[in-house]
Every structure is written in C-alpha cells, then in structure tokens.
C-alpha cells in the first residue's frame, strides 16, 4: 500500500512535464483542469496513506521507507532514492496537496486572461512536486534536493511575468537568498555525514541521542546550519527580505508558496529533525528568539504598509515567527498545528486579496479601495472570517493554535516570561494590522469612485468558501493533530496548562489590537494623522521596513560588486593579465636587443669588433 505513495510525486511531475512539453497544444482550460486533477489525485493518495497509517497502532506508524533505486553508490556511502511515510510527512502533505488543490482551482479563474495560462500551471505542478519531494524525503540528500527545487519553482513563479522588472528582480533575490540557505543545509548535511556516516533520517535520528552530549559544539553547529536553511526558506530575520518582494508574482502563487506551504518548510524541518534539535537546547532558545523577534518586527512593519499583498506578506512572516516560537520552546506539534491553521486562513486571505485585486482591475493599494463589501459579498464574508482567524478571535482556527503557542511560550520546556510577553505584543499587533487592512479594503466608502469592482466567478469563490469553513472550524482539529503527530515527537507533550490569567491577557491583547484598528480607521482619519505626526520617526522606520534592505545593499551587495569590479579592472586586467603580456613583451624586447648583434649590418659588426678590441686592450693594460 505504501508503495502507492510514489504517485504523490509522480502525478504532479506528470502534470509538469506534459504541460511544459505540450502546453501550447493543450486547449487553455483543459490544461488548467488537468493540472488540478494531478494535484487532486495526489491529495487522494495522501488520504489513502492517512487511512493506511490509521490501520496501524501509533507506534508502528513511523519509518515506512520506500526505496525506488540506488542513486549513488560510493565507497562506504550509498544513497537510495527513497521516501518516508510517517504521520509528520502525511500531515504536511495533506496541507500541501489539499490547500494546493484549492489554489489550483482558484487559479483557473484568476489566470484566465493570461496568455501563458498553461505555463503557469506547469510551474504550479512543478512546485507541488518539489514540495512533495521535500516533505517525503527519507534522507538529508533528498531533503536538499526538494529544498532547492521548491526554490526553483518559487523563482519561476515569482518571475512568471518576465516583462515586469520588479517581478524579475524579486525572483532573483528570492533565489539567491534561498541558495544561501541551501548552502547552510549542504554544510549541515556534510557534518551530519561526518558524525553519523549516513544521511538517512532513520539512522541519524536513532543515533542522535547517544552521539552527542547536549549542547556539544558539533550538534550546535549542525543545528545552527540547518537553521540557516530553515530561516532563509521561511523568511525569518535576518534572511527575510525576499518574501515581501516575492509578492510581485501572481497572487495564487503568493497564497500557495509564500503563505501556505513553502515558507513553512523551515518549521517542518525543525519538527522533522526534532531528534537533533532536542540535543541542542541553546539552538532551541535561538529558534524561539528569532521566531518571536520576527513576529514582532514583521508585525510592526505590517501595521503601516499600504500594499494589500505586502501587509499579508509581513503577516505571514510574523505568523511563521509564531510557529518557530512554538517549535523553539519544544512543543513541536503546536508549531505544526499553527502551520496547518495558518495555511487555511492565510491562503484564504491571499486568495481573497487576489479576488479584490481581480475585481479592482489589478489595483493593490488599499488607500484606493474601500467599501468593497457591497460589490464583493462572498469575498467580503470569507475575508472577514480569515481576518478573525488570523487575529485570533475566540473559537476561530487561529485562536486555538495561537493560544497554545502563547501559553507554551511561558509554560513550554524552553519557555519563559520574555517570550511570552513578546508573543502577547505580537498578538496585539496581529489584531491591529489585520483589521486595519480589513477596514481599509471593505468598509467605509469607495475612495476611487471610477472603479467598477465586481465579484469573482464561482471557480474562484468556491475555494474561498471551503477555506473559510476550514478557517472557522480547523481549530477543533487541535487534539487530533497532537495525538496523531505525537509518535514522531517521542510521545505526547502536555499541551494544556490551566493558567487562566495568561489566557485572558492573550485574548485581551488580540481584542485590543482589533479594537484599536476599529477605533482609528472607523472613526475617521484625524486621529491617524495625529498619531503619525507624534510618532513620525518610528512611523518612518516602520514604513521603510527598518531600512533592512538598504542596510544589506550597503553592507553586502555594494561591497561584493565593488570587489568584483576591483578584481575585474585591477587584479585581472592590470595585475595578472598585464604581467603575463609584460613577460611576453620583455622576452620580445630582449630578443630584439640581442638581434641587433645579428642584424647583418657591417657597420654594427665593425663597431662590435672595435668595442671588443678596446675592451680586451683595456683589460690587458689595467689588469
């Protein structure tokens, strides 16, 4: 049965290959539905795997490795092309293929007018394939393969509109930043190989508890390098600057890759390698710290941006920060739970934003929107549900997962008061930016009367409605998630802490954020202008994203270019190449000098003869 899991890889790959080879010959809509069918098929197979796992006792659900063929056989080292089925990979795949399928369907409507419709779906299927490789990999080698392939799919899709300069630049930026992460993972894999003599998850994780002392130098280094990959892929500080720019791609791409699935791969990695990270408590503190700092920094930037997609992008960064906080304090399944609920409501937010952009004829500036609740009722309702879930409104999906994170930020194995306090502030920010966005877009009066917004077709709104249902009810899946994943994380971790005080404060923070947004944006602009004036320097810093892009440009991009220029103009042309030519020139000069003596001119021979005789004469006389 488990061997059927190859279909999860094979179907999207088939979709990618056939659409890219015969894309032009496919009738337009057929290509799109074909791609959807491939992803839908993968989802069904994943469900089958889930059922299969359920037919076994929880302890037996681990380590079902399927091997296809040996990839490389080197001395004392062999790599098989193999995949790993266990609760964690199936759980992640359910999100990837399930949400992926909905977004594929939505894209049929969204990309309808695009000339290169089939190329888009080819890339989307490529992404699903790559993400499945990443998730299903049974060793670090194929993890890296999948890791880099999702980067490629992301590159192709961000830069899908190849004539749009900002998109092309953003695509390149994303790729390069992710290659930095890939290299970190690569070195981590080498170190793992050096210590364990294997790259297989099963071998490595089994040996990990006895191979190191906690906080050993080498385990710290390995986990740190893995984190470089994780942070680059998941857009955590300081490797985050590519994500907001990545919003230049088509909106379904933002929903699928830059919200629901790929950017959460870092969280998946930490959860997958929990056996390693458990041996490195220092690294755990680092994860939690980076997570919570990213949650705050990204949340604060999100509060002042005006591009609808960028606000959501910063929100994504911030929410992934929450996930890292969760895995960092040691409650892996809580992190995965938030990953799931986030996939629902964030995909929904992005798709809703896409619907808005679609209806507003490609307008993305929320200052030019407003009052859309009448023109786009379904989008309005679903967007509201997503916003409530994101802000953590009680009983929505986001409420449960975020509440567990905040609680564990204090009570978790590595939790403490500081993590908790910062998390609460970030929760407040979430409520604020979410509803600021919501009010700007849907409430009030339209600020561009000439725009003729319209509701999107059913093919786009149907996925919205399904995701809205999941965003409302997904929170109740929490206990199931924890029990299903517990074998992977070495048994159940106590999740529930009766600490009503902390809970009330967290909920109050979320509500406070929402109310602040309502107060400022519902009652008119004056308070806002006043606040902006009072806090002008802070506002400027936030609006300019803390100038991090500029700092990187100054510290890294410019120096590297300058060094390159120096190498090219000085070292290469004037240094090495010049000296090579100079050697040649000197040889020629010398030979020309010598050749004067052999020129055949009698005068010179006579002169030489005289000179020679004089020399001999002088020698004889004076010696």
């Amino acid at each position, binding site marked *: 049965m488990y061997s059927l899991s190859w279909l999860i890889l094979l179907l999207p790959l088939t979709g990618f290959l056939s659409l890219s080879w015969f894309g032009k010959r496919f009738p337009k809509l057929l290509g799109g539905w074909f791609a959807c069918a491939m992803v839908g098929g993968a989802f069904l197979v994943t469900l089958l795997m889930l059922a299969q796992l359920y037919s076994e006792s929880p302890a037996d659900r681990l380590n079902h490795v399927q091997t296809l063929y040996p990839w*490389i056989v080197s001395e004392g080292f062999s790599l098989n092309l193999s995949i790993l089925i266990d609760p964690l990979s199936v759980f992640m795949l359910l999100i990837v293929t399930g949400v992926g399928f909905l977004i594929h369907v939505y894209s049929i409507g969204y990309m309808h007018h695009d000339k290169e419709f089939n190329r888009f779906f080819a890339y989307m299927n490529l992404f699903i394939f790559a993400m499945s490789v990443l998730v299903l990999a049974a060793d670090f080698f194929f993890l890296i393969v999948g890791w880099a392939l999702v980067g490629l799919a992301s590159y192709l899709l961000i*830069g899908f509109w*190849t004539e749009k300069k900002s998109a*092309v630049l953003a*695509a390149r930026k994303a790729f390069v930043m992710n290659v930095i992460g890939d290299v970190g993972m690569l070195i981590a894999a080498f170190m793992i190989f050096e210590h364990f003599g294997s790259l297989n998850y099963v071998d490595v994780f089994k040996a990990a508890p006895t191979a190191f002392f906690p906080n050993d130098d080498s385990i710290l280094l390995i986990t740190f390098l893995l984190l470089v990959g994780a942070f680059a892929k998941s857009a955590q500080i300081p490797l985050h600057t590519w994500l907001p720019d990545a919003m230049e791609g088509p909106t379904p791409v933002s929903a699928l890759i830059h919200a629901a699935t790929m950017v959460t791969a870092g969280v998946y990695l930490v959860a997958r390698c929990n056996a390693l990270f458990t041996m490195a408590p220092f690294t755990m503190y680092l994860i939690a710290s980076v997570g919570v700092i990213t949650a705050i920094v990204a949340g604060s930037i999100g509060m002042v941006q005006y591009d609808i997609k960028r606000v959501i992008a910063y929100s994504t960064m911030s929410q992934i920060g929450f996930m890292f906080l969760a895995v960092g304090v040691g409650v892996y399944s809580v992190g995965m739970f938030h990953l799931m609920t986030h996939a629902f409501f964030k995909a929904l937010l992005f798709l809703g934003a896409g619907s808005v952009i679609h209806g507003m004829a490609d307008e993305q500036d929320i200052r030019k929107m407003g009052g859309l609740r009448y023109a786009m009722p379904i989008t309005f309702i679903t967007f509201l549900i997503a916003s409530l879930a994101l802000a953590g409104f009680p009983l929505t999906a986001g409420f449960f997962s975020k509440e567990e994170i905040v609680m564990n930020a204090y009570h978790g194995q590595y939790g403490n008061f500081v993590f908790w306090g910062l998390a609460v502030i970030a929760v407040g920010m979430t409520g604020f930016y979410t509803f600021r966005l919501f009010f700007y877009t849907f409430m009030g009066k339209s600020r561009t009367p000439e725009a003729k917004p319209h509701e999107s077709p059913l093919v786009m709104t149907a996925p919205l409605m399904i995701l809205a249902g999941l965003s409302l009810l997904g929170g109740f899946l929490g206990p199931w998630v924890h029990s299903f994943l517990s074998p992977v994380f070495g048994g159940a971790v106590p999740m529930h802490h009766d600490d009503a005080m902390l809970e009330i404060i967290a909920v109050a923070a979320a509500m406070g954020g929402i109310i602040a947004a309502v107060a400022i944006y519902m009652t008119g602009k004056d308070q806002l202008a006043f606040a902006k004036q009072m806090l002008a320097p802070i506002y400027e810093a936030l609006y300019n994203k803390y100038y991090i892009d500029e700092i990187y440009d100054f510290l890294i991009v410019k120096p*590297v270019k300058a*060094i390159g220029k120096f190498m*090219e103009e000085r070292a290469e042309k004037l240094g*090495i190449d010049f000296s*090579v030519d100079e050697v040649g020139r000197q040889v020629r000069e010398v030979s020309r000098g010598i050749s004067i003596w052999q020129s055949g001119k009698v005068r010179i021979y006579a002169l030489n003869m005289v000179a020679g005789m004089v020399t001999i004469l002088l020698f004889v006389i004076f010696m």
Partner: protein
Amino acid sequence: MFLTFLTFLPLVGALALAFIPKEKEGMIKQTALTVAIADFLLSLQLYADFDTTTAAMQFTLDVPWIEAWGISYHVGLDGISLLLYIMTTMLTAIAILASFGIKKHVREYMIAMLALSTGMLGVFISLDFFLFYAFWEFQLIPMYLLIGVWGGPRRIYAAVKFFIYTAVGSLLMLVAIIWIYFHFHKTVGVFTTDIMLITQQINLDMLQQKWLFCAFFLAFAIKVPMFPFHTWLPDAHVEAPTAGSVILAGVLLKMGTYGFLRFNLPLFPLASVEFLPYVCSLAVIGIVYGALVAMMQEDLKKLVAYSSVSHLGFVMLGIFAFNHYGLQGALLQNINHGITSGALFLLVGMIYDRRHTRLIKDFGGLAKVIPVFTVCFMIMTLSSVGLPGTNGFIGEFLILLGIFQNQMAFAIIATSGVILAACYMLWMFQRVMFLQITNPENEKLTDMTPRELCTMIPLIIFVFWIGFYPKPFTKTFDASITHLLTQITPKDNHAPQGHHASAETDTKIAQAEAGTHGTH
C-alpha cells in the same frame, strides 16, 4: 586495436577530406559529420565492453615503437579516462554539427576539427610518455589554427597567447619527463617511457618529487586553468569560433585535470600531500575569484569563460580531497562541466550568429521572442548553478562532501562559490532573457533551427540523466578511484579494506619506502 581505430578514425577522415574538392562544401560538411558521429557511436561500444570491477587498463595495445629508446605505442583506457574519451567523441560531433555555418575555408576547418579530435583522444589513451607528449603538443596546432584563422577580431593575439602559454608550461613537463627517463634508468636499469611501468616502480625521494611535481603542475595548472594561470582562457574563448570554444571548454581543460589524476597523484604522492594546502588554496581562490570576475563581465562568452575558472576550481578541490567522494565528484564534474559549459558556448554562439554581438546590454526580453532557446538556456544556466536534478549538483555535492572530510575550511569557502554562481548566472540570464525588449533588432530574432536543436538535445539529455541517475556514470570511476587512493595514501593510514589491488600496492609502497631510504 579497436581503441586505436577509434582514435585515428577522425584523422583518416581529415585526410579523406583533403581529397574532396573544396567547392563541394556540403559534401565536406556531411563527410566530417558522418565520421564524427560514427566515431561517437562506435565509442559507445567501449562503455558497453568496459569492465567496471577492475582498475587495470582495458582495451590495451602495446607494440614496440622505437625500441632503442624504450618507446612503445602503448594505449588503453581505465575508469579515469573512459568517460572523458566518450565525451570527446560526442563533443566533436556536436561541435562539427554546430559549425555548419562556417563560411571561410570550410574544408580546412573541418580537417582541423577532425585532426584536433584525434589529438585529444590520443592524450586520453596514451600510456607512454613519449606518445602522450606527442599528442599533448599535437592537439595544440589545430586549436591554434581554429582560433587564429576562424576566430574573432583579436584572434591572432588570442591564438598566440594560447599557444605560447600552454607550450611554455608543457616544456617544463618535457624536461621533467626526460629527467624521469634517465632517473628511471639509473635506479631501475631500464630505458623506458612506459607510464604504467614507471608509475609502478619509480623511486623518488621527497625533494625529487617536489621538483617534478612543480614541473608537471605548471603544465597542467595552465591547462585547467588554475588561478593565476588562467588569463589565456577568456581571450581564447572570446576569439575562438563557437565550436572552438565548445572543444576548449569541454575537452581541452579536462586534459589538465586528467594530467593531475594520471601523473601528479600516482607519480608524486608524497609531494601531492605536501603541496595539498597550496593547490587547494589556489583552487579556492580560483572558485571565488572566477565567480567575482564573471559577475562583472559584459561579454557573454567571457562570463562563461570565467565561470569555467570557478568550476574547474571545484574539480581541483575534489581531486585534492584525496578521498573517494571527492575524486568521484571531481571526475563527474569534469564530465558535467564539459556538457554544461559546452552547451552554454553553443547557445551564446547561436545568438551571436543572429545578432553579431555578445554584449549583455544589447539583449533583454528575448524570452518572449525565442521560447525554445529560452528553455534550453535556462536548463543550462540552472545546471551551471548546480541545481538539484541537474548534473551540476551531484558533482558539486560529492566534491564538497569529499573536501569537507579533510579540509573543512576550504570546503566552507568553496561553498560561497555556489552562492556567487547563482548570483552571476541568474543576473546574466535576467538581463539577457527577461524584461522588455529594449533593442528593436531583437524583435525579429528567429528561434532555434532543427540543426541547432540537434546540437542541444544530447547535452540536455545528459544534464538530466546525470542529474537523476548518475550511477551508470559514477560506477565506471569506482575501481580506478579505489586504486588511485591506494597509490597515494601513506602507508600508516592505509586501512586494510581488502582491495583487490592492495597486494600490488603494498609492494609498491615498500618499494617507495626503500627508495626513500636508499637516497638518504
């Protein structure tokens, strides 16, 4: 005998071309192509017959040539040279197919190409120093002509630079070979130039090894080319015709790395270990320096040329990792680089044929105009960057894995080359292929012709084949690598792993040791 036949088949073809009237250009081209393709297809038989379980030379032929001096015609292939040999026949066929647009002196051009092929193939099969040196120098001449006659505006400068640079390097090697020749006679008592025999029985002390290593090093380092001996390469590439660049990048550079594997490591193991930090330093500098300089290039061909400097640095690093992974990666990356940079030069040549410029700023937005070309170009760009799923990744992964075990610091610096490669390749790709068309001349470009596609398809197949299933390629190396490692591993580290060659090796090491003591 078969090997000799394959090696000289192109030369025979070249001779035959001389009898075709020069007006019949179509016939000349077809004959040359037929010979090259036949040579390639026949050479595949070598792969089929190759025994991957032994490190011994295969398909050997050893006939006395100049007996008085101990020179013989001794040829053969092992795991180190097999794939290089087949790649050479393949790239020759592709290069000839890519040169059908040549206008000037077609017959002479094709003769030069075929003669070049024999020269290169000869280098990889020679098991006799005299023969090796003869082929090594012989292939310079057709290459020199290809650049000097059919090249670009500064072709004379580039051709002379190429010729003198490589010739000077090989002269020192010649001196070293002659020294070895007499030394071998002095110590063993036989006048011979047989590489196998000399490698097995030569006794050299540390000082002698160091000097000889340096002489060979210079010849091969120029050929690779390693920093700082690389400046002939960009000039030669820029001026060479497309097919010349393909051969230059695909095969000629590999002779350098091949030389290290065939001569420097087994002949001078002590010196190799001694000089390891210096060689690795140069390799790493080459990786980073080549990448940085490539980033700043405005000419597409120069950019690819400098990327070669960077990539060949990886190969050198893999060789000097002195372990199985590193060597496996180095040998594989040798092939990969031949495929990828060969293809990149072909692609650059195609747009040069259409636009008569290679400056990046003259392009932009080509993706919309020539989609098939774009796909091919993208595949090769990603292969050059080393994306998983393409051939480049496997090679780099194994090399870095290997060097990481022994020289962690070098490995970490080298990885920055991976990042920089992504920077300069994607930046270039974006400026050439994406955004709006700025130059109206680019709007009317025609996409790849069937002939051009034929030159690309085999290379694309290998990119993915090696990328997804490298085992058929790597398995040809294994026995030879194991053997090579036993030749260079110092005795005290030599764990008894039951190699089939270990008995032979032990006697060799014993001999080497005796030699060392003897000279003190």
